[in-house]
């Protein structure tokens, strides 16, 4: 069900109902692709400026006002580069791999509620959909590591695969915890339920623990420091995307930032009230929700960038020990705790 009724009505004047439906699908997909690209570029600029300020220097500030056009210049450079590839690489899989990552990122973006009126795909298993689709993205990374026919890429691909599969469990369990509190998996309904108080306040202890776990697991899901052993530049060259150059590399690069955006957006929806404004100030203004949603998401993204430029990185066995021996037991106890809180009616 698509809720952009304005476009539907306008198209119905010129075509039959079926054609309007499919045209609308295409238009919405194009809009999301454009948002994906522009937002990716904006996030790269933000990362470079934030990094600069942490390291006591200015980031890019020459190209365009405050350096905003810097990433477009970089993207142009990447597009014009030669697409190298090794002779012995399995060329079909080698070219197929980036598409897995991009397609899954786009699919996850489709269910995010940007505001009460702007949501492309409002199914009743929204949260579950995001979790399952992001698991498919791991295949893209495995394929990249294998098909490059390079020892470094293989090691990088293996490491990523293990890491992402392990931390999927933590993310899934946190989603279960918050779904217990909400009583529903549909994204728009979860946001509506938070009109009386954001879940992080109404679920008090259990929700705060869940938020901490979600931040750790989410950082690991999107392969950021302190869990970026995959692309550990100091060790293995560039990990699983060593053999990719030009536009292929840009796909992975952008996909990492979009993954970060998706994790932050999910955190905002299930903990911080989605597109709701604090104390309900501007809830009656239509489309104002987009502003609040973006603000909260950008704050969580800033938090993830802060982690990156402060902490050293964990070794692969320490990473897995953290997940399997510490995070999963805590998660399980937290689910039971949240269930108890809801059953006994102790939430605010």
């Amino acid at each position, binding site marked *: 069900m698509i809720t952009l009724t304005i476009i539907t009505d306008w198209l119905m004047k010129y075509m039959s109902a079926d054609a309007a439906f499919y045209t609308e699908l295409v238009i919405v997909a194009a809009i999301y692709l454009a948002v994906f690209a522009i937002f990716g570029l904006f996030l790269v600029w933000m990362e470079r400026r934030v990094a600069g300020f*942490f*390291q*006591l*220097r200015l980031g890019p500030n020459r190209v365009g006002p405050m350096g905003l056009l810097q990433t477009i210049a970089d993207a142009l450079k990447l597009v014009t580069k030669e697409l190298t590839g090794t002779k012995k690489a399995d060329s079909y899989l080698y070219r197929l791999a980036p598409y897995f990552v991009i397609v899954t990122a786009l699919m996850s973006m489709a269910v995010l509620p940007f505001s009460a009126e702007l949501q492309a795909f409002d199914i009743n298993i929204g949260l579950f959909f995001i979790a399952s689709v992001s698991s498919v993205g791991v295949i893209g990374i495995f394929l990249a590591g294998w098909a490059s026919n390079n*020892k*470094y890429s293989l*090691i990088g691909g293996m490491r990523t695969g293990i890491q992402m599969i392990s931390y999927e469990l933590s993310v899934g369990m946190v989603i279960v915890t918050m779904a217990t509190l909400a009583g529903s998996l549909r994204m728009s309904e979860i946001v509506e339920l938070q009109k009386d108080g954001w879940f992080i306040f109404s679920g008090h202890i259990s929700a705060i623990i869940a938020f901490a776990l979600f931040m750790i697991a989410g950082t690991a899901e999107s392969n950021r*420091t*302190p869990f*970026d*052993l995959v692309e*550990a*530049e*100091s*060790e*293995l*060259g560039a990990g699983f995307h060593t053999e990719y150059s030009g536009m292929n590399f840009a796909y992975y690069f952008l996909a990492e930032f979009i993954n970060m955006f998706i994790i932050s957006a999910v955190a905002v929806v299930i903990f911080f009230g989605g597109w709701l404004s604090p104390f309900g100030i501007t809830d009656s203004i239509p489309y104002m929700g987009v502003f609040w949603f973006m603000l909260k998401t950008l704050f969580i993204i800033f938090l993830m960038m802060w982690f990156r*430029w*402060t*902490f*050293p*990185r*964990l*070794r*692969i*066995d*320490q990473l897995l020990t953290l997940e399997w021996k510490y995070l999963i037991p805590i998660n399980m106890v937290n689910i039971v705790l949240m269930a108890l809180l809801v059953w006994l009616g102790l939430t605010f």
Partner: protein
Amino acid sequence: MENKEFLADRIRTMEYHLNMGPQHPATHGVMRMILTLDGEEIKDVEPVLGYIHRSIEKMCERDTYKQIIHLTDRLDYLSAHMNGEAVALLVEKALGIEVSDRIRVIRTMIAELTRIASHLLWWGVMGMDTGALTTFMYAFRDREMINDIFEETCGARLTMNYNVIGGVRYDLHENFQKRVKEFIKHMKKKLPEFDRLLSDNVIFRKRTEGVGYISKEDAIAHGLNGPTGRGSGFSCDIRKIHPYSAYDMVEFDEILLNGGDSFSRYKVRILEMWESLRILEQLVDKIPEGEYRMKTKAVIKLPVGEHLQRVETARGDFGVYVISDGGKTPYRLKFRSPGFANLHGLNAMTKGEKIADLVVNFSTIDVVVPDIDR
């Protein structure tokens, strides 16, 4: 229980070779290592050197002693001053030239500033190797203060070329004392901050504690020296055992830690920076008056025989060994580089550990590859 066989033991695995090639972000310079791996465990590390070999030892057989000092700056460029000091001290001892107190104090002060600069760069790179990329920027910003002091007095920032046989090349600049005092005050505020950024970080501790353990006997047998050896409890500070220049005029402690692992080696260098600041503080107000350059003959010929001089650089125990036949140029000159001796210890430290540990161990040994390759 003896007959229990695990499935994992029956799976046949094969060792494979991985090349950490000459261009690599983690090897500090052009060095190639061939690793033999079993899964992620390292079985053997074999270095292949020579990418920056410039045959300095052969060149020294054709250069006069005054020209050899110019070549020593390029050996270990992070402690350039101390290498030249070694050759100058060797020639002065062999010819019996007595240098004035002013020269000794100047040499010691510039040497300690070089040591702090080298350890700051090491600290920045160590953070970078473990993934905390910000430390690199912080370290270089503070190193700029030292570079400015060098530029004013010696004329260059990195390869200072300041020692000559019989003294130093130029007298101290008039701003030298003021700048050194400012620097000491600045560093005393910054060093605790730097220390806390990495040492108190749980992730960093888990990466370095218990990693790369080498016992004291093994350290002595493998010839480890400098801060690397002192992290295992091997007392090898040449400034204490065979003092030279002004080191018998000042009080300082030799840092010895018994941990033997990477964290101890890291901690030794941080504490050494404090000791260097202490030496500088004691000397900055008491620079004696005198000549800055003694007169020597125009043509320098060493007496027949062998001469050895050892100096403590930031990497360890640097030695110059000269066999002279009475002529203008040495018959055979050998530079004993501390990095070359520490390199074989890497093999003993990393047996059975993972690639990520190899990067951390290699970083704590603090190798500068031109020092090894000469």
